[in-house]
């Protein structure tokens, strides 16, 4: 009994901090609240039937996006906590250990559980519609990918109250992250949650690549595809080549920690630098995985709202291809200071700078798209326009960091923190916000309130620059990253205080956005045409929200922006709509992806605690599910009969 109590209070539950107890209570209350609401309104069945078992790419996309926004909230709170701690010198809001945990979970969550799922959600929502596919190539696998991500996110978030948070940074450098210097369970949670979500991402990469290569509408050549679809294809290829490296690195560190191997220890022949290399061989391409789809969204949004075809379409494609290839040969720029020698550093410095060339080409193409056009200042477009100057600041300071000798000055300083937030927020986050506003009607059938959207936009824009621009200067003045407090005489106080104000402005912007979503659900303008923005690409051809089968009939889609030109041609749209409707084959829902991923969670949880038996139970369950699926799932799917399709289309006013 005593032993059990000791285990529970010393190993299982995180104890000792008032903030943690607060979180315990909050989690318990929220869970009970959710269970109560679901039961009270008798929504269990609906939840299971419509969402948890769905294989529809649009619904899976929406679930990804909801989860990503929740994670943006969690990661954002972490950010605000860190900024509050640093607003004045010598504050005691967080102690050193807690600060370590928070910057670690902040970074990890933002990159892997916010940016990635946001992007994959956008892709799920829009890409199949843009190419006229009925679903992705492997809908069942798509559901598995989502639930892997979801349960992995739960695993990581759980570490906060059970077991202990990871605290070695999102880069998890060895030997710091090894058992010797970092005993306890936190790091295990990092390793296993990343492993599980990584498997899901890899599956998504395969899925999207096959979908795009094999399931395009009749006539649509590769060079006719919308730019967002192009960015998805290239991103998927990067995923397929980069993620296995992460898988291996995580597995090795897990084996080091749990089974005492020596991949990254400094004893028995292991080499900690091996981790830095493997991590960034994945990690650098990863930053292009999170930026290229955003580039795709900006291209769509800018060309739609300037009413012009994207300038330099094929140049845009080729520059993305070039960026993706270069992204694999620059990884050492993350550790110029770790003793690689001048020749190696020069090579990686120059290859890094080369990326600026195709990126610059893209920026000029966007500017030329906007030139001489009638710009419509919708909220989606404002996010896209704001991206340009802010991203340029991030990009130029990136080139400064690529100058290896100079990097000895900037390395791991706040200058770096400013740089990558300028790239990640102005690139990825603005991109996701633009996409959210742009495709919202396609997802939910109504438009987000433009006025609230603009208020949120300006709050973010001011807050973002006030928060991160001064960081360049404190960085140059010598403030390093990952420090939990600083002395009053360092001369950093006023800039730090300003940064914190900016961070809270973004926080208020986030709250306005949440209010905008709630408000628009009630009062938002309904989209009855399916084409609220006078769009150019295929997703605007079907009703909003798109029906289960996406398109009743498919016209010939050869040519760039075919829908736009169809609208100019008299009678072309009517002619396509009057095509003969045939019954459509769709995949069936399944509860197995959900359950199987719970088993992944169980296996992961077991490994975190080094309860090997529990891990084996989980893994055996997964294997069993795979065998059952193979042996007994006839993969039938169902057919939507013609009269149902006709009724749906008539109700949407399309027949």
């Amino acid at each position, binding site marked *: 009994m005593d032993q059990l109590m000791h285990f529970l209070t010393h190993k299982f539950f995180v104890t000792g901090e008032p903030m943690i107890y607060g979180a315990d209570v909050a989690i318990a209350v929220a869970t009970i609240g959710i269970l109560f609401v679901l039961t009270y309104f008798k929504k269990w069945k609906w939840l299971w039937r419509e969402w948890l078992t769905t294989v529809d790419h649009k619904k899976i996309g929406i679930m990804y996006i909801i989860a990503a926004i929740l994670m943006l909230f969690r990661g954002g709170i972490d950010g605000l906590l860190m900024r509050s701690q640093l607003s004045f010198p010598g504050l005691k809001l967080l102690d050193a250990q807690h600060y370590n945990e928070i910057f670690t979970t902040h970074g990890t969550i933002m990159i892997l559980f916010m940016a990635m799922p946001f992007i994959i959600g956008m892709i799920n929502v829009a890409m199949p519609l843009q190419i006229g596919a009925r679903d992705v190539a492997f809908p069942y696998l798509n559901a598995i990918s989502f639930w892997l991500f979801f349960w992995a996110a739960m695993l990581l978030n759980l570490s906060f109250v059970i077991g202990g948070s990871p605290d070695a940074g999102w880069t998890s450098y060895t030997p710091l992250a090894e058992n010797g210097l970092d005993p306890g369970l936190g790091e295990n949670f990092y390793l296993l949650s990343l492993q599980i979500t990584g498997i899901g991402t890899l599956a998504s990469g395969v899925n999207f690549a096959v979908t795009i290569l094999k399931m395009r509408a009749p006539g649509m050549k590769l060079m006719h595809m919308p730019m967002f679809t192009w960015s998805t294809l290239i991103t998927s290829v990067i995923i*397929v080549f980069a993620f296995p490296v992460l898988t291996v*690195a995580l597995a090795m560190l897990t084996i080091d920690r749990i089974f005492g191997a020596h991949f990254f220890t400094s004893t028995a*022949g292991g080499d900690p630098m091996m981790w830095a290399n493997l991590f960034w061989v994945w990690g650098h391409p990863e930053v292009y995985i999170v930026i290229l789809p955003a580039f795709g969204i900006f291209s769509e949004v800018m060309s739609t709202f300037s009413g012009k075809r994207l300038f330099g379409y094929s140049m845009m494609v080729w520059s993305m291809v070039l960026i993706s290839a270069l992204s694999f040969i620059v990884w050492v720029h993350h550790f110029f200071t770790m003793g690689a020698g001048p020749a190696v550093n020069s090579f990686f410095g120059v290859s890094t700078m080369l990326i600026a060339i195709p990126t610059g080409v893209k920026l000029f193409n966007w500017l030329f798209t906007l030139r001489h056009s009638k710009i419509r200042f919708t909220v989606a477009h404002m996010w896209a326009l704001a991206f340009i100057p802010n991203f340029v600041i991030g990009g130029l300071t990136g080139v400064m960091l690529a100058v290896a000798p100079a990097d000895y000055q900037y390395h791991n300083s706040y200058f770096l923190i400013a740089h990558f937030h300028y790239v990640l927020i102005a690139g990825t986050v603005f991109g996701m916000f633009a996409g959210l506003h742009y495709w919202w009607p396609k997802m939910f059938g109504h438009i987000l309130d433009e006025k609230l959207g603009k208020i949120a936009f300006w709050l973010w824009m001011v807050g973002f620059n006030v928060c991160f621009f001064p960081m360049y200067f404190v960085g140059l003045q010598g403030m390093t990253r990952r420090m939990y407090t600083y002395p009053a005489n360092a001369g950093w106080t006023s800039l730090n205080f300003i940064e914190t104000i900016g961070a809270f402005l973004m926080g208020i912007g986030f709250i306005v956005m949440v209010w905008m979503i709630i408000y628009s659900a009630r009062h938002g303008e309904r989209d009855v045409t399916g084409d609220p923005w006078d769009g150019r690409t295929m997703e605007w051809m079907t009703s909003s929200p798109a029906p289960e089968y996406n398109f009743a009939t498919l016209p010939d889609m050869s040519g760039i922006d075919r829908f736009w030109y169809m609208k100019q041609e008299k009678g072309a749209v009517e002619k396509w709509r009057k095509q003969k409707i045939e019954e459509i084959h769709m995949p069936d829902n399944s509860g197995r992806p959900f359950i199987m991923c719970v088993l992944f969670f169980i296996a992961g949880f077991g490994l975190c605690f080094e309860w090997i038996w529990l891990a084996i139970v989980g893994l055996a369950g997964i294997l069993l599910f795979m065998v059952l699926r193979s042996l007994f799932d006839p993969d039938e799917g169902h057919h939507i009969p013609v009269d149902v399709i006709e009724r749906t289309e008539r109700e949407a006013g399309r027949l």
Partner: protein
Amino acid sequence: MSHAEAVDPNVPLEYSTEHGRLRIFGFWVFLGAEIVLFATLFTTYLIYLHHTAGGPTAKDLFDVKGFTIETFLLLTSSFTCGIATHELRRGNRGGLIVWLIITLLLGAGFVGMEINEFVDYVHQGATIQTSAFLSGFFILVGTHGCHVSLGILWMISVIIQVSKNGINSTTARKAFIVGIYWHFLDVVWVFIFTAVYLTGLVL
């Protein structure tokens, strides 16, 4: 296939439906990821080849006879797996099953020998904890061994389905894909043979 889906009679059965074509193509893309996975493991092994930390070296451990037999078993199984695919194309259910069984028995022999080899090393005091070299060795060869074991389970499942449902577009696809997988594992083994065993003995 149980789908009421159009079947194209002019191509091999496994390619005859949209579903089949997608999955086979998807599997090739997945193999791209597998190549990267093994490439990473090979790199680690080669970097750590001499990081033996005073523990046993490759020359101390590797037994030429053992890994030669393993190689022989696996390469033969690739050949028999090819015959199985040939029988599949001929629509010969019995032939397909028999050759798949032979293939998986050879694979099982391989896995058995490998386990034996590992147990032997552990008895000699060469474990994953001994040195970075051995960590690299066990994870590379072990990952391949796990893949082969999984392939065996998978093949058993395919055999059950072929004997239950006969050769149709679904089972043809499954048998075809497991065949690709098996050949892939053989190719990886050829690299292990060269990069791990031969290099280990020579360098």
